[in-house]
């Protein structure tokens, strides 16, 4: 997330005051990303220190910010660089499911289903916000809600897969006459195909 780069992009259209930048930024990003004015001035000070913007003082004694050539290059570089994904996101749910399999007091299918309902509820909530965002023509907010929808959907599909894998693993354990005390075998987990989702 880069306030810094967003400000450079705004300045690329022409010099502006700090407060004007804050207003423009919020107009572009809607409710997604509220900025306080202090954050804007701190960022501008750093951009100036790094030679990416220059300043002049106008007739009213207000600072006006302008982008430099190095600033333009930096803004281009931002668009050319993909946003990094977290390499290993902390997946509490995966850990919970693995431990649920080991525990005599937990029913794995119940844990999965409870999570599925919770995911569905948050998806319903976001979908309602989306309908409003569409009606309001609030594009930045809409794109962000779209991202949340797809994340929730990904979690739901992943849950379907977890359930299929766990069911298979538990079935194999029963065949071997075990009770959920061992770790799932890596080969059993890795070779599972993605289940059909068609109707």
């Amino acid at each position: 997330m880069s306030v810094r780069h967003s400000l450079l992009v705004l300045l690329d259209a022409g010099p502006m005051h700090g407060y004007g930048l804050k207003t423009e930024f919020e107009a572009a990003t809607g409710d997604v990303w509220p900025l306080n004015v202090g954050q804007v001035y701190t960022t501008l000070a750093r951009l100036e220190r790094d030679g990416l913007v220059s300043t002049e003082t106008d007739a009213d004694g207000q600072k006006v910010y302008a982008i430099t050539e190095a600033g333009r290059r930096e803004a281009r570089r931002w668009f050319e660089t993909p946003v990094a994904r977290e390499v290993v996101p902390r997946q509490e749910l995966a850990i919970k499911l693995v431990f649920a399999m080991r525990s005599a007091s937990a029913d794995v299918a119940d844990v999965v289903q409870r999570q599925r309902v919770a995911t569905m509820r948050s998806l319903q909530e976001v979908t309602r916000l989306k309908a409003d965002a569409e009606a309001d023509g609030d594009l930045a907010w809409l794109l962000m809600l779209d991202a949340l929808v797809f994340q929730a959907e990904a979690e739901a599909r992943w849950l379907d897969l977890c359930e299929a894998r766990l069911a298979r693993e538990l079935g194999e354990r029963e065949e071997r006459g075990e009770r959920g005390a061992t770790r799932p075998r890596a080969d059993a987990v890795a070779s599972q195909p993605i289940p059909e989702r068609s109707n």
Partner: protein
Amino acid sequence: MPILEIERARRIFGSREARVVALDDVSLRVGQGEFVAIMGPSGSGKSTLLHLAGGLDRPTSGRVLLDGRDLATLSPAELTLALRRQVGFVFQGLNLLPTLTAAENVALPLELDGVRPKAAMSSALGLLESVGLRAVADRFPGRLSGGERQRVAIARAVVGGRAVLLADEPTGALDTISGEAVMNLLRQRCAAGCAVVLVTHDMRHAAWADRVVFLRDGRVADEAAPPGGPELLLQPGRVS
């Protein structure tokens, strides 16, 4: 009183060793203007439930009530009439007749019901207008996009003020934006008082419903309603 009520329905196919319990003691009440989505893995009974709801199939035991009337007590002629006047269907494909224009397709159920062609056409055009499809009214289905075709099919399914719309994967082959337009239209029909039951495996589409019912092995496993209640989607302005 719910417009559609399924009471402890059980549907068993085959007998003896080949006996399959497709639905096992499932109850579902759908109120006027309510949007219910049915989800579940393959073979969980989703489509069977929809067929019972639409009188296309009968439960082995239990009852299906449409507007308070038990479908099993109706004569074949009464049943046909009740379904034609009150229930509309939309499926994944093959919904429209290719030799009729969009408007003629929408007018057709009214004409079958005895409405004069001119009046039927005028109702059809009015409905297409209200769902943002007036511009494509004179096109044949082959000239419509997939999303437009499904929205015309929904218009045809609800024309004449039918009280219940049953939809089985109506967004199956559509891209994301067209799928959302279809869901928006379903939502709009609910606001106009039509009850909608949607069978889907797509969570993103199910999330448009007031309630999501999860089926599993022929039983209701769970239900999800949004934290703020179903009325939120119908309110104008931002919910925060």
